[in-house]
Every structure is written in C-alpha cells, then in structure tokens.
C-alpha cells in the first residue's frame, strides 16, 4: 500500500540531510565523517527506537526491508539484512528519510498513512512499510535521502580527489549503461572511492549511483573536457 507525498526537489532533500548532519554535529560535538554513523543518528540524535526482526513473517510480505511506525517512533529493519552492512545502513538511512521527510506531513494532517500491526493480532497504527523495488515518489525521496546521508557530496568529492583527482571518463558510458552492461571500470572506481573515503557502510552499487549523480562519472567524450 502506498501513500502520496508532495514533490520535493533534490535541493530540498539535500537541505533536510544537511540539517540532520548539523543536529548530529551539535549533539556529538563534531560533524560525522564516513562511515556516517546512521545507527547513532537514528537512535541518539532522533531518539528513534530501533529493532531488527522478521518483518517478512510478521507482515506477511516476502520483500519487506524496513518499516517505521510513526506514533511509536519505532524503526524495524528486517533480519535478512543482518550482516549486510551496505544494505542495512541504506535501509536504515531510508527509514530515517521517511521519518524526517514524511512524518511532518502526518502531523500537519496532509497525508494519511496506511495502518499496519507490528505483530499479528496487535492494533494497527500508521506505518510506512518499505519493500524491495518500490518506486513511488515517497520511496524515491527516502532513497535519495539515504544516499545523500551516507555519501555526503563533499566527502565523495574529496575521496575522488584522492583516487584520481578528476571524474572518471568511460567510453560510451551512456550507451553501455543503457544496454544494461555492468561496467567494470565504474565498479573498480567506486571500490577505490569507498576505500579511500572510508565509506565502509556503503555498497559498491550505491556508490556507483552516487558518483553518477554527482557527475563524477562521465561519458568519455565529456570526460576529456576536464
């Protein structure tokens, strides 16, 4: 079940992330550095209760990754992500995104959220249940929030500087990507950026997407312009 949220530009999401990072810096006395401590942001800074559990069984949905119960300030991450640092942190960052971006909409009575029970037989309350591959606007916004939170632009750019000093130019990048090719140069570049930048809680795939969004990967012809 989905819910509709108003449009938010990338700049608005970036601003919400920066505000949260500022809150962390104020609480801890220093700005967060990669790997961005998303657990501490959720639990200590936002005061959310975090649990890991078998959401798939409890909610009867085979592809659930995480859920946020708004009235209980509770985030539950599915146990299947235990031990998968990249996916776990991205999912938690995504739930934090819902909390920051979408919970205020409920408080302003702008959005009615679907009801879900935490346990079979328990009372259903307003919750956001996130499933693998969901592509509605609320989920896309939460995904962007997670990416910006875990991979701040300034830190990614600094890591790229350490790796090569310039964006990665890939011949026929657009066409190869369109053809669904897994591009080895990009995978290796993302791995180096992760290693140099200390992004140890980020998956290679997430970093590839982030590098592209920051235009740190360009088509060969464009890359030679740098």
């Amino acid at each position, binding site marked *: 079940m989905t819910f509709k949220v108003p449009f938010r530009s990338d700049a608005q999401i970036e601003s919400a992330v920066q505000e949260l990072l500022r809150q962390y810096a104020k609480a801890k006395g220093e700005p967060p550095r990669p790997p961005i401590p998303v*657990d*501490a942001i959720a*639990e*200590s800074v936002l005061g959310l*209760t*975090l*649990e*890991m*559990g*078998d959401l798939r069984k409890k909610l009867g949905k085979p592809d659930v990754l995480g859920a946020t119960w708004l009235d209980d300030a509770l985030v539950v991450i599915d*146990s299947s992500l*235990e031990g998968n640092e990249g996916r776990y942190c991205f999912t938690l960052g995504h739930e934090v995104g819902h909390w920051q971006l979408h919970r205020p909409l409920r408080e302003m009575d702008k959005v009615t959220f679907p009801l879900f029970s935490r346990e079979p037989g328990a009372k259903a309350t307003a919750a956001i249940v996130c499933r693998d591959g969901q592509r509605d606007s609320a989920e896309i916004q939460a995904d962007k929030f997670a990416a910006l939170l875990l991979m701040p632009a300034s830190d990614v750019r600094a890591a790229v500087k350490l790796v090569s000093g310039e964006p990665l130019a890939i011949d026929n990048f657009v066409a190869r990507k369109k053809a669904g090719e897994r591009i080895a140069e990009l995978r290796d570049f993302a791995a180096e950026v992760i290693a140099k930048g200390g992004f140890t809680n980020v998956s290679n795939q997430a970093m590839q997407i982030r590098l592209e969004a920051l235009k740190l990967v360009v088509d060969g012809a464009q890359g030679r312009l740098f």
Partner: protein
Amino acid sequence: MKERFGERIRRLRTEQKLGLREFATKVGISPTYLSRIETSEEKAPPAEDVIRKMAAQLSDSFDELMTLAGRVSEESLNVIKADSGMPEFLRTVGERKLSAEDLMKLLPNEPKKGKR
C-alpha cells in the same frame, strides 16, 4: 508492574546511549536476538555468560538480571548440589516466606561483599 528483563535491558541501554547493534556486538549476540530479548519475543532466557556481559556493559547487578531472566547461576546451583540438606532448607525458606535479607541477618557480622 514489575519491569521485565528485556524492558530493563532496553531502558538501561538507551539511558546509556548504547545503540542496538553496538550493544549486541559488545555482548556477543546478534542484533535480531537482542531485539527479541528486549521485546520479550524470545521466551527462553539468555545464557548466563550473556547476562554476565550485559550486566558488565550496563553496570547493573548480575544477580538481579539473572533473577529477572528467571535463571539460576551455575555458581548457585553448585552450592545447592554440594549439600544434600540444601533443597530442604530452601523449601523451608520458601514455605516460611523468608527473604534473602531475613536470612542474611542471621549470619554473623562480616564485612559486606556488596552486590555483584
């Protein structure tokens, strides 16, 4: 209503600003198992060594946590096993509803060991 074992663990953990995964790592269990303990979803009490580590991390009383978890320590069991009169003694204590504090008063004055 008396605080349950899991509720106490979560309360102390959050009061001390220890994250779910951070605390689970420190006591050597999985975050999912810790969540199950904290929400009382896990019916069997954790092992004694896990409770000992939790008590140490949270600076809490091991004995009290063991009692809340419904566990008797190996050390206490050994005391009972070592004396065949101990089961009857404990039955009598139970029947007369004597507390540990009542029994302690019967012992000669010795320097207190303090809570563990």
